[in-house]
Structures are given as structure tokens and as C-alpha cells.
């Protein structure tokens, strides 16, 4: 019973890396910080998974996450510099970072198929939550048109990653 409670708690932890991206009234500088942090969290997880994953497909996906989220972050930091916006730390970006670190620490305790499954489950939850955050908070709150346009432009990448991760989730759970 205790074991299942711990397993459930750990699963909950993994599934809620960006659950707190719901703060209302975020300004553009805070949005920039949330975007950069959200991408960085997934780059960090991808770097670990690219070496630690067992399945080649999962490794390939992890490398893609590093490449794509690095590309998105470059665009975000370039735009922030152009607009002279200094990304502003805020409770949402702080909890994103803290949750990302916790989730990564947990991933590092796993290996083999268990690692692959946990990483892919995390990726499905992460991308779904970022899409929700984009739709409900970030895009509606952005006031600068270029920032809003960038958020709209990056959304399809998150949707494609989510679909890709779901396909891998189906194959990794079959293997388990």
C-alpha cells in the first residue's frame, strides 16, 4: 500500500512539471522568462535521455527535443534582445524550474525500459501542459505583437512533439 502511494506520488510529480503555468496577468517580460525556462527544462531532460534511454527511438526523440527547443529558445532570446525585454523571473518560471529539476532528479534514479517509459510519459504531460499554457495564458496575455506572433509560431512544434511522444508512449507501453 505504501509502495503504491509512493509510486502514485512519483507519477504525479512527473506528470505535473508545468501544472502551475496558469498565473493570470503575466507581463511580456514574465512570458519571455516562462518560455525560456519551459524550453530549458525540456532541453535538460532531453540531454539526459539522449544518453540514458535504452530505445533508439526514444534517444532520437530526446535529441530532437534538444535541437528543437534550443531553436525555439534562440528565437525567444533573440526577440527579447531586439525588443529590449529582460526576461523577468516570476513564480511560474520559478516553479517550472523547480518542478523540472525534481522530475529530472527522479528520472536519473531510473534505468532501462523504466527510464524510457517515465521519460516519454513526462514528455507527453509536459507538451500537453505547455500547449494549454500557450492557449490559456501566454498567447492571450502577450501584449507585444511580435512576442504574440512568436508564441503562435512555436505552438505547432509543441503539437507535433506531443503527437510524436504519444506514438512512442504507445510503443514503449507495449514493450513493457
Amino acid at each position: 500500500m505504501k509502495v503504491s502511494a509512493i509510486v502514485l506520488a512519483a507519477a504525479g510529480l512527473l506528470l505535473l512539471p508545468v501544472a502551475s503555468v496558469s498565473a493570470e496577468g503575466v507581463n511580456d517580460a514574465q512570458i519571455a522568462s516562462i518560455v525560456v525556462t519551459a524550453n530549458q527544462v525540456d532541453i535538460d531532460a532531453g540531454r539526459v535521455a539522449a544518453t540514458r534511454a535504452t530505445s533508439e527511438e526514444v534517444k532520437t526523440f530526446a535529441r530532437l527535443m534538444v535541437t528543437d527547443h534550443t531553436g525555439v529558445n534562440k528565437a525567444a532570446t533573440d526577440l527579447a534582445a531586439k525588443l529590449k525585454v529582460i526576461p523577468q523571473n516570476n513564480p511560474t518560471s520559478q516553479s517550472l524550474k523547480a518542478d523540472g529539476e525534481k522530475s529530472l532528479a527522479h528520472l536519473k534514479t531510473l534505468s532501462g525500459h523504466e527510464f524510457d517509459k517515465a521519460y516519454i510519459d513526462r514528455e507527453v504531460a509536459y507538451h500537453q501542459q505547455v500547449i494549454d499554457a500557450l492557449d490559456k495564458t501566454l498567447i492571450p496575455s502577450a501584449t507585444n505583437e511580435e512576442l504574440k506572433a512568436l508564441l503562435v509560431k512555436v505552438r505547432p512544434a509543441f503539437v507535433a512533439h506531443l503527437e510524436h511522444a504519444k506514438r512512442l508512449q504507445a510503443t514503449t507501453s507495449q514493450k513493457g
Partner: protein
Amino acid sequence: MRITRLAALVGLIVCTLGLAAAERPEPKTHTVTIEGLRFQPERLTVARGDTVVWVNKDLVPHTATSEDGVFDSKTIQPEKSWRFTAGKKGEFAYICTFHPTMTAMLQVE
């Protein structure tokens, strides 16, 4: 008599060349824009000899890779493009090897 035959022959050749030219118009260049993790248009029909240019307007790298190995752009970085001259008739389903959700079709007539 011989001159007439020659004239007819020359006429025939010119005519044949003319027809051949009519059958093979100047090759065209078509553009497929890669944006929002989609190939646009998703289905493109071109003539043999035409050139297709894939332009990556996304923030992430992509490829245009036919499933049967007829063409493969390898990595197309953001804001870069890749050209391919269609030499073989047929229907070529292609994908981005990085993003398996991206699929499209090139038809060469």
C-alpha cells in the same frame, strides 16, 4: 523532285522538333514552404524536369525525404532551402525524418 523531297524532309524534321518543343515546355520552379511543421502545399504536381524548392520558414530544422529513397534533402536549417529537379515520373510520398507527423506528396508527371 529531289529538292521537293528534301524540303518535305526538312519540313518534317522542323515540324517534329516543333511538336517536341510543344510537348516539353520550359521547366518551372515550384516552392514548398515548410511552416508550422507542415509542408505547404501538402500535395504538389509538377512536370518531369521541373525544380522544387523547399523553404524552411520554421524555427527548427526539417528534412524533405521521400519514402522510397528518390530524394533526401538531409537537414534544412531554419531560413534555408533545398532544391530538387524531378527526373523520374511517379508519386513520391515524403516526410520530415525528424518530425514523423509531417507528411506530404510530390507527383511528377
